[in-house]
C-alpha cells in the first residue's frame, strides 16, 4: 500500500517531455533551414559589405547598383525553380525567417525545398530576428523577407567564403532522387501452373 503522498512523489519525479514522433532522418522537417554558425558575424558581414553601401544608393535605381540584388518574390521563386539553366548562377539567398511579425511563415515555408532542389549554386542564409527592419532601414524595399544576392566579380571573395563556411549544408534524402524518374525493371518469369 502506498499513500497518496508517496504516489504524488513518484509522479513528480517523472518529467514531462514532448517527443517528436514524425521526425525521421529521411524526411528531416526540422533541419530544413541550414544551420548558421555565429549568426552575429554573418549579420555584421552583410551589413558592412552590402547594406551600409546601399544606404548611399537610395536615389539610384536598383538596376544600376554595383551588385545585382533581387527582392521580388515571384522573380526569386522562378529563378530558383528553373529546371535546366543555361549557365549555373552563383548566389546567396538571405532569408528573414525569424521575423514572423513582418514576414508570414507561409511565404517562406517552401523556400528551403526550392533552394535545395535548385540547379544553381544557392547558399541559403537565415538571418536572426530584427534583420528584416535592418535591411529595410538601409533603403531596400524588402517585402517578403527574401534578399537574393548574385555573386559576381563585384563581390569580395573573402565575404563569400566567410559566409559559406558558416552555413552548414543540409540533407533532405527524400528530395534527392526526385528529378530523375527511374521506372522499375519488370521482367516476366516463365513458370507452369496446374490446369484445373
Amino acid at each position, binding site marked *: 500500500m502506498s499513500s497518496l503522498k508517496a504516489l504524488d512523489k513518484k509522479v513528480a519525479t517523472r518529467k514531462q517531455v514532448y*517527443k517528436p514522433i514524425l521526425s*525521421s532522418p529521411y*524526411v528531416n522537417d526540422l533541419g530544413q533551414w541550414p544551420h548558421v554558425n555565429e549568426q552575429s558575424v554573418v549579420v555584421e558581414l552583410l551589413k558592412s559589405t552590402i547594406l551600409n553601401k546601399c544606404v548611399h544608393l537610395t536615389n539610384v535605381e536598383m538596376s544600376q547598383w554595383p551588385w545585382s540584388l533581387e527582392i521580388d518574390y515571384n522573380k526569386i521563386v522562378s529563378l530558383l525553380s528553373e529546371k535546366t539553366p543555361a549557365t549555373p548562377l552563383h548566389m546567396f539567398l538571405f532569408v528573414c525567417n525569424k521575423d514572423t511579425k513582418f514576414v508570414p511563415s507561409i511565404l517562406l*515555408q517552401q523556400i528551403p525545398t526550392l533552394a535545395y532542389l535548385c540547379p544553381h549554386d544557392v547558399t541559403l542564409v537565415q538571418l536572426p530576428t*530584427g534583420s528584416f527592419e535592418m535591411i529595410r*532601414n538601409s533603403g531596400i524595399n524588402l517585402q517578403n523577407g527574401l534578399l537574393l544576392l548574385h555573386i559576381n566579380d563585384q563581390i569580395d571573395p573573402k565575404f563569400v567564403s566567410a559566409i559559406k563556411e558558416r552555413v552548414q549544408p543540409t540533407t533532405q534524402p527524400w528530395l534527392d532522387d526526385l528529378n530523375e524518374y527511374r521506372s522499375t525493371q519488370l521482367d516476366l518469369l516463365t513458370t507452369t501452373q496446374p490446369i484445373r
Partner: protein
Amino acid sequence: MNREQKTRFRDRHLRYQYDLLHCLPSVTQRPDSLSGLYLKKFYNATKRYQLTLPTQLTDPMGMFCTQCGVVRVAGVNMEMERHVGAKGKGSSLTYKCLYCSKSNDSMLGPELAAPQPIATATSGKNSRSNTPISTGKVSKPGNNNSSINNSAKAKARAKKRKNNSLSNLLSQKNKENKKKNSGILSLESFMQK
C-alpha cells in the same frame, strides 16, 4: 503488448506512413490516386492514436495538396506565385498543384510602404545608430556597452525584488494607513465609517 511496446509501435507505424507520403513525388510523376490514399491512411492513423498534428501539416496551405494529397514540392509538383493587390489592399499567395491543378489561396497583409532612406548624406556611423534593433542584436555579450547595460538591468531587478518582499509590502501598507488616519477628517472617510 505493454505500454512501451505500444508507443514504439505507434511511432514506427506513423513514421512509416509519413515517409511513404514523402516517397511518392519521386515514384510517380503524374496525378495518382495513391497519394490521396496514403494521406487518408496517415490521417486516420493519427486520429486513431488521438494525436493532434501540427498546423503546417493540416493547413490548406500546408504540406499536402488539399485535393490529391501529394506532398507539395515547390518547382516540381507545385507552382507558387504572389499576387500583389491594389494599393492598401492585401496581397495573396497562390499554390497551384501541377498534378490536379487545384489552387489554394492565402491572404497576406498589405504591402509595406517603401522605407524612408535614412541619412543618405551622412556617414555610415550615423545610420548605424539609427538601427537600434540590429545593433542590439549584433552586439556580442563580451561587448563593453552591453555588459554595462546588463549590470544596470541586474541592479534594477534586485531593487524590484527587494521592494516586492513581503515585509516591505506590509510596511508600505502600514504607512499608507497612517497617512490616511493622520490627515484631517475628510468627508469621504466620514462617510465610509
